[in-house]
């Protein structure tokens, strides 16, 4: 599988104490990676390093191109943790916000094809009805969906999302993760997602990355349950509750993998805890 993100020996520090060190991993085309870890563990910093928003030590390549030379930003969609205008009233409509996701060019008027792409993205995130509304006047959840439309409007091959579901209600969250799942499965979009919502997202993701100052674990869900490194870091109970107990519907998201885990770890109470 071709590499989408390759990181080697990353190190980053805001002060003298490193936030991240000895970080190496290789995300491949079609991966759906759930990044988990404690608060302050460096998850958001890691995404910022990948996007070039922070500069650290080590090597990062995007689509086999070193980050410094990478120009094909339309291949990447990004949704940050915080809404960009939480305090001030920026006079811009939801449609104009989504338009920002397309490559910038000179002039101010969007072309017909650009508007078509914008409306399609808004349709997919069910935000078309807010197209003319001032972004600031939308609820936080609606803003987040508009920002997701902005992230996917350029039909990216890689989506980088930092806790995107925090402000969403249950219905929107389900729609949100179903859309991500569809993008990953049908369109082979590689997804890198920081989340604490491990139950909902567990249905779709293919790999876990556990980050706490460094990458403690990176592998499939099945490997996660058997990882000694994770068990050592989290303890065996938490290692499995990340995937199992957080499922709000009471169904195990792992299917076969779950049965295996339950077999290995009967203290968890079986596959449908």
């Amino acid at each position: 599988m071709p590499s989408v993100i390759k990181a080697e020996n990353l190190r980053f520090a805001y002060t003298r104490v490193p936030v991240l060190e000895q970080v190496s991993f290789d995300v491949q085309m079609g991966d759906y990676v759930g990044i988990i870890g404690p608060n302050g563990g460096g998850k958001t910093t890691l995404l910022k390093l990948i996007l070039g928003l922070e500069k650290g030590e080590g090597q990062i390549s995007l689509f086999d191109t070193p980050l410094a030379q990478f120009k094909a930003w339309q291949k990447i969609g990004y949704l940050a943790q915080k809404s960009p205008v939480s305090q001030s009233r920026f006079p811009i409509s939801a449609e104009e916000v989504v338009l920002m996701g397309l490559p910038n060019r000179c002039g101010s008027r969007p072309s017909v094809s650009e508007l078509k792409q914008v409306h399609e993205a808004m349709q997919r995130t069910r935000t078309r009805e807010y197209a003319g509304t001032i972004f600031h006047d939308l609820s936080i959840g609606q803003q987040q969906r508009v920002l997701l439309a902005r992230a996917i409007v350029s039909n990216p091959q890689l989506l980088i999302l930092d806790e995107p579901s925090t402000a969403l209600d249950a219905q929107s969250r389900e729609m949100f993760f179903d859309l991500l799942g569809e993008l990953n499965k049908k369109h082979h979009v590689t997804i890198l997602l920081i989340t604490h919502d491990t139950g909902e997202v567990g249905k779709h993701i293919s790999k876990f990355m556990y980050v706490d100052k460094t990458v403690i674990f990176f592998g499939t869900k099945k490997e996660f349950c058997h990882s000694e490194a994770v068990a050592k870091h989290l303890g065996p109970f938490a290692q499995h509750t990340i995937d199992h107990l957080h499922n709000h519907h009471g169904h195990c998201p792992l299917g076969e993998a779950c049965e295996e885990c339950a077999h290995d770890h009967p203290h968890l109470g079986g596959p449908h805890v």
Partner: protein
Amino acid sequence: MFEFLSYSFVQRGLVAGTFVAVACALLGVFLVLKRLSLIGDGMSHVCLTGVAVALLTSTSPVYMSVPIVMVASAGIMKLTQKFKIYGDAAIGIVSAAGLSIGLLLTSLAGGFNTDLLGYLFGSILTVSFSETVLCAILLMVVLACLFAFYRYLVSACFDAPFAHTRGVPVQTVNTGLVMITSVAVVLAFKVVGIFLISALLIIPPVAALLISRTFKQVLVWASAFGALSVWAGIWISFVFNIPSGAAIILVSLIILLGAYTWSKLGGVNAR
């Protein structure tokens, strides 16, 4: 009532004042939304250093101040980016440095004189022809940048990290914005005086933001308010024989009050 318009120095002042006010209003929209509006205040204090150096060396205060204010602006940017100092603190540091160096040089030059007071409080009627041309060039540059890079500017202003991931050179956009503002600030000190420059950058955009629904409306209203402030301010200063700089800013404050009232009484932002 409008016989003062027959004087050529008044006409020149009006034209130059309008160019500068519109340029400041357009730049101010981005500075206000980026929460950098006080950078004009910091730059204006640095103007005092430029004026003092010019008075000491008998050179043109405008031409002497442009490079000095640009260097100071670069200093503000460097302090915020490189040393991670908050923007307002960086502006405060550079502003204090500009003011103290200016006062020191003024004292070395033999204290305050009428020339300096003219720069402190504005002397729009002493604007020269070459300065008027400079004001016109400034406005043309601002408008050209706005038309050419509108989407880059709005994107970098709305969400800089995301704009970076679209390939927008956010750093270059910010530097360009601040450097053009440096020139606008220097040209504006003839119009309203060093003490009131920042008002030209802040008040018309804030009033426009109160009554506009779209970004383009903000730009149009801010420009209109800036120009109206200059015209009405100069007329009032003639009729009531008061300083033009103060009159211009008082008019802009009245416009702001009107915009606020309108927005509260059922304007677009009424909630």
